[in-house]
């Protein structure tokens, strides 16, 4: 597909052009952090963001999603997908979306997630600032990007826009572009390679080694030691781009005859996640915090690594930053396991 060039001065008209046709969800500032949010004004866009509190997955699957409304006559679906643009997605988050797409469509096709996913245009963007916990240069680094429609790389004087899909080509009508020169394309490639190279944190092993070593460490005393300060608060789960578990609940209206079934993001670090109730009573199959803490690394680094051919991790570093006790950093934990 083609490579276009967007001058710095043409960025805002392009964003406004997109906003005239679609809701545009993009990184904006929120206090000391950034979040993906629907743009109200084009210049709220912050392509220089380091990371967002929540990953862009929330655009297809919000943290609470109504599934059906029911009454005595029957039930009806709540989803109302409409075309939207998700803009400014970093390369490692594009990989995260590709993993979620697989989780929500491979064995069981999740209509609620996929309906929103399929109507969304994704515009990737280069990393202009690193989040201090980022390590995406050393995990799944060789995996090609897929599933996005355009990719914009900041270079001197503007952006090189790689047109990745036919859907992406449609969006070019919203702005004015010129064909990128070979020198601009080469500069963009260098910018993206440098972003991978310059991550502040680094894993010391490849996908296969991580899978074998983490699995072999199942009985290691490490999990007890490292989880001593764990709050079982699930923050590492909730901010993770590849966590996909959810809880389904019904809420009845006061009339006792109608209500709503909804789902909420769930978190396997919380103790109630592994609580099951049967005829014999309630029991917890991962009652200890060390078991739950270990489970997260087993899932991401071993079990899902088998399925995906790499850890279910993008190296975004959100979990490391979200952990108030500072014990969730995969770089610290996995590098320690690799030393064993």
């Amino acid at each position, binding site marked *: 597909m083609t490579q276009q060039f967007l001058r710095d001065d043409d960025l805002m008209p392009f964003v406004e052009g997109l906003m005239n046709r679609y809701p545009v969800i993009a990184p904006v500032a*929120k*206090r*000391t*952090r950034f*979040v993906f949010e629907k743009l109200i004004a084009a210049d709220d866009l912050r392509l220089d963001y380091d990371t967002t*509190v*929540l990953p862009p997955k*929330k655009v297809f699957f919000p*943290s*609470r999603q109504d599934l059906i409304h029911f009454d005595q006559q029957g039930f009806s679906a709540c989803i109302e997908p409409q075309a939207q643009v998700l803009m400014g997605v970093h390369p490692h988050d594009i990989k995260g979306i590709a993993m979620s797409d697989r989780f929500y469509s491979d064995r069981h096709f999740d209509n609620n997630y996929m309906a929103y996913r399929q109507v969304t245009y994704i515009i990737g963007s280069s990393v202009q600032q690193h989040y201090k916990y980022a390590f995406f240069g050393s995990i799944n680094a060789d995996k090609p990007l897929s599933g996005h429609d355009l990719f914009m790389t900041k270079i001197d004087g503007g952006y090189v826009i790689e047109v990745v899909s036919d859907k992406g080509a449609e969006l070019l009508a919203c702005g004015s572009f010129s064909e990128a020169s070979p020198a601009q394309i080469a500069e963009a490639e260098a910018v993206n390679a440098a972003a991978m190279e310059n991550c502040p944190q680094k894993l010391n092993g490849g996908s296969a080694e991580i899978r074998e070593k983490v699995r072999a460490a199942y009985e290691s005393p490490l999990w007890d030691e490292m989880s*001593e*300060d*764990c*709050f*079982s*608060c*699930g*923050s590492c789960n*909730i*901010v993770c781009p590849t966590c996909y578990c959810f809880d389904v*609940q*019904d*809420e*009845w*209206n*006061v*009339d*006792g005859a109608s209500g709503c079934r909804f789902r*909420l*993001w769930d*978190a396997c670090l*919380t*103790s*109630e996640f592994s609580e099951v109730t049967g005829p014999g009573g309630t029991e917890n199959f991962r009652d200890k*915090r060390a078991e739950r803490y270990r489970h997260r690394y087993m899932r991401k680094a071993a079990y899902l690594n088998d399925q995906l051919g790499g850890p279910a991790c993008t190296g975004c570093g959100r979990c490391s*930053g*979200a952990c*108030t*006790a500072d014990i969730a950093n995969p770089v610290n934990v996995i590098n320690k396991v690799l030393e064993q």
Partner: protein
Amino acid sequence: MAKLKCAWFDFACCEGCQVELTNYGEPFVQLLEHLEPVEFREVMSEKTTGPIDVAFIEGSFTREADRRRLEEIRARAKVVVAYGSCATSGGINALKNHMDDYAGEVYGADKDRPHLNSAKALPVSAAIKVDYEVRGCPMDRDELLRIVQQVVHGTAKVYVPSYPVCVECKRRETVCRYDDGEYCLGPIARAGCGAPCPADGIPCEACRGLAEQPNQEAMVKVLVDNGKLPQQRAENLSRMFTANFRGDA
């Protein structure tokens, strides 16, 4: 279907939960299609001594005389709902539980007046069997509504989370107070409120009590290291609403 006879009773508390309920508006009016209030101090002057279907109890159990009154309510109520932090945990009143001279501290020279005589502040469940608890200061009126709805219609048990407030803060993408170097009890506080306080720039004080398996030692460490609180304040912080559930209760 006959309306359920309901009565509201208050013990050691500010009655703010009753006010919270009367301020509810439309949902409370809808509820009155199914309930008949027979005693409710904040809204009516009638009293009752007969059998009741649902007793709503607010406030903590802090005097022996309270026990008799609670037992009498239990004896004539089919269902007992304790609501608000005072009734479910002892509430702020339990701040006195670890102090020897709390009366002197608060009332000075008047401390020996007989009506100020009280014992430890405890939840209602320390005196009588409680069927449902609605936590929070003030109680969560949506949750109370769902529980009443369940009692009225006999629908499935209302789910209330037991995990920490952090889950709900993250779900609504509130910037963590610790990111700004501010303190918060969210990591050990029980969720279910939807985490409105940190979103409004107020620290979580754990008004719904402690989460399941709270890591209190790690909390003190984080309050000192990241929240910049002095050691003693960090150790005492969670007393405000969880005095009866702490390791040192």
